[in-house]
């Protein structure tokens, strides 16, 4: 059986890739995709903890069974919704400034 730490390492790697992408990608689309990765890292963690709740090997105690999965489903749904909003914002930004390169957009500069 694959131990819990493997799953958590996978989640950490996904999160690190996501953060790296979000900080370094120039296009808004890339940043959005990276944010999806961060969210999925969280999902992996949620499901992992659900599975190993209670003892490191045993099944989850009754009553909390499936809570992590439901949480993950919610995160997926919200991620889809926020992706829509994000894309709409990208389109709106493109219409205004003819670019989606985030380093070119600095309206909030002092």
């Amino acid at each position, binding site marked *: 059986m694959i131990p819990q730490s493997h799953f958590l390492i996978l989640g950490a790697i996904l999160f690190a890739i996501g953060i790296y992408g979000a*900080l370094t990608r120039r296009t808004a689309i890339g940043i959005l995709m990276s944010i999806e990765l961060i969210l999925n890292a969280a999902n992996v963690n949620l499901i992992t903890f659900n599975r190993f709740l209670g003892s490191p090997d045993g099944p989850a105690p009754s009553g909390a069974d499936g809570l992590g999965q439901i949480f993950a489903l919610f995160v997926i749904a919200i991620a889809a919704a926020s992706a829509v909003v994000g894309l709409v914002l990208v389109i709106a930004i493109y219409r205004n400034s003819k670019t989606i390169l985030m380093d070119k957009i600095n309206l909030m500069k002092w």
Partner: protein
Amino acid sequence: MVKYAHLIPLFPFLAFAINILFGRKLKKASAIISIAASSASFFLAALTFLGNLKGGGSYVVAKWLALKTVAIDFGVIVDPLSCMMLLVVTIVGTLIQIYSIGYMGEDKRFSRFFAYLSLFMSSMLGLLLADNFVILYIFWEGVGLCSYLLISFWFERPAAAKAGMKAFITTRIGDTGLLIGILLLFFTTKTLYFKDLAGLAGDNTVFTIAALLIFCGAIGKSAQFPLHVWLPDAMEGPTPVSALIHAATMVAAGVYLVARAYGIFVINQIPLMAVAYIGAITALMAASIALVNNDIKRILAYSTISQLGLMMVGLGAGAYSAGAFHLMTHAFFKALLFLCAGSVIHSIHVEDEPSLHTQDIRKMGGLFNKMKITGATFIIAGLAIAGVPPFAGFWSKDEILSELLKSGHYGLFVVALLTSLMTAFYMFRLIFLVLFGKTRSKLRVHESPNVMTIPLSILAAFSIFIGFIGSPFMNHAFQNFIYFGDVHTMEIIEPNYFAMGISTAVGLFGIGLAYLFYILNNKILPQAIRARFSLLYNVLSNKYYVDEIYEFLFIKPCLRLAALSFKFDLGAIDGTVNWAARVAMAISRVKSWIDIHVVDFFVNLVAVLTGFASLAVRRIHTGSVQNYLLIAFFGLVLIIVIKLIGG
């Protein structure tokens, strides 16, 4: 008892409202509305009168003023006196309105005129129906307002505007007395209802003073000496207005007030004698002025003053029913006289100036042949006022005379007789000069239209026959009807043939004298007398210089005071105000400097300091989202690290 008397004033008021709001659209139709409203009032008044034969009373229409100790309501009094006056006002008012269609036909404010007439009638009818002093006072002032509006109806003419003001201000002087009297009564008795007051009034100083003050109001409204000056000037208004004021509405209000508040007057002799002697002075004075006046309407105005004086004499001498009787008959024949005068003025044009309607009787003459109906009715009215039997004026005037004889007021009797003589004389001087002889200037004359002559004929019929209801032939039905039941013991009315004889003789003598002067001995005799008594003539033709005395005593000082006040206003008050303004401006200049150089300095300082402070830290605001994200991420990491180290 029937309870619709309060609707009587509402009809004309409705007509007023319609005409004043939609007059521009209605144009000539406004006359129809006013006349319809007056007729409706007349029918209701007749019904009220018939109902009252079975017994009157007062009833409350609406609750109004509920004070802690006393309530004053909109109440209506229905008794013989108010019934009689309601009938007179509605009949005469309606006829005058019909007449006005012809007389005011070409006036540009036709509908406005009818609106005012309706309001005038409404106020007067309300006054007649009021069952307490407050309501009476409200309508009393309404009547005053309407008289102002109508007298100065042709306000383009300065004389008319002035006359309106004079009428309003002069009557206000009396009204002030009335108001004080009402308040005095209220604080003494805690009630203002006529029916209660009559019982409460006792023979003491307070009630005497209250009665005298109330009489002040009557002096003003009924144009008694010394407040009679407004009435002759009121002739500047259109003639139907003069007729309405003199017959039905304005001046009758004063006499009505005295009759209505008679319970307060009869407490002792002082108020009664004040009424009687003021009346006597007025009667004699006005009649003597009328002897020499040359304006057709002013003669009639002085005649009204004199006749009102006679009514006051009657009321003051205790001849209550006779005074009320004369008030009624006078309403008919005086309305007729004025409408005749209006018909004459309306239908003659001076040749040289085609638009000019003259009122000078010296320019008229010989009009009888050209305007038969007006002439005939004029003569009937003249006979009625001169006291020739069997016309209306005879019966009522005779009633006053015989009451004066019976109560032993011989001085007043002589005055009344003298007034009757002069009345007969000046009235027939007027009639002879206007209707007979030969025309003394180039005039174009035509008879007035039917809409004017028919009211004349109806009023003439009244002037002939209305007196009979108070005559011995009908057993003094009027006096028995009107008799003042509550306090006064019923007067025993019996024909006094001596008084009848002497008043007839005096009337005929006056007419004969006028005939001698102005028909037989045209021009010679009057001028001889004028030359002989030139001083007296001057005094009379200048109206006893009353206007001049008032001018000197009151108006001039008032104007001078006003001029002084104006100067004071301009110099002292405006000076102070301007000085204060200048000081304020100086202060504000200092303040402005402080504002700019001190307050603004600190405000700007704060802004500049804030700017400086931000120079260092604003660098972190790069505007790039990813920078922010990076900072947030490292912040998170930092928090976790601290958490881990801290354990």
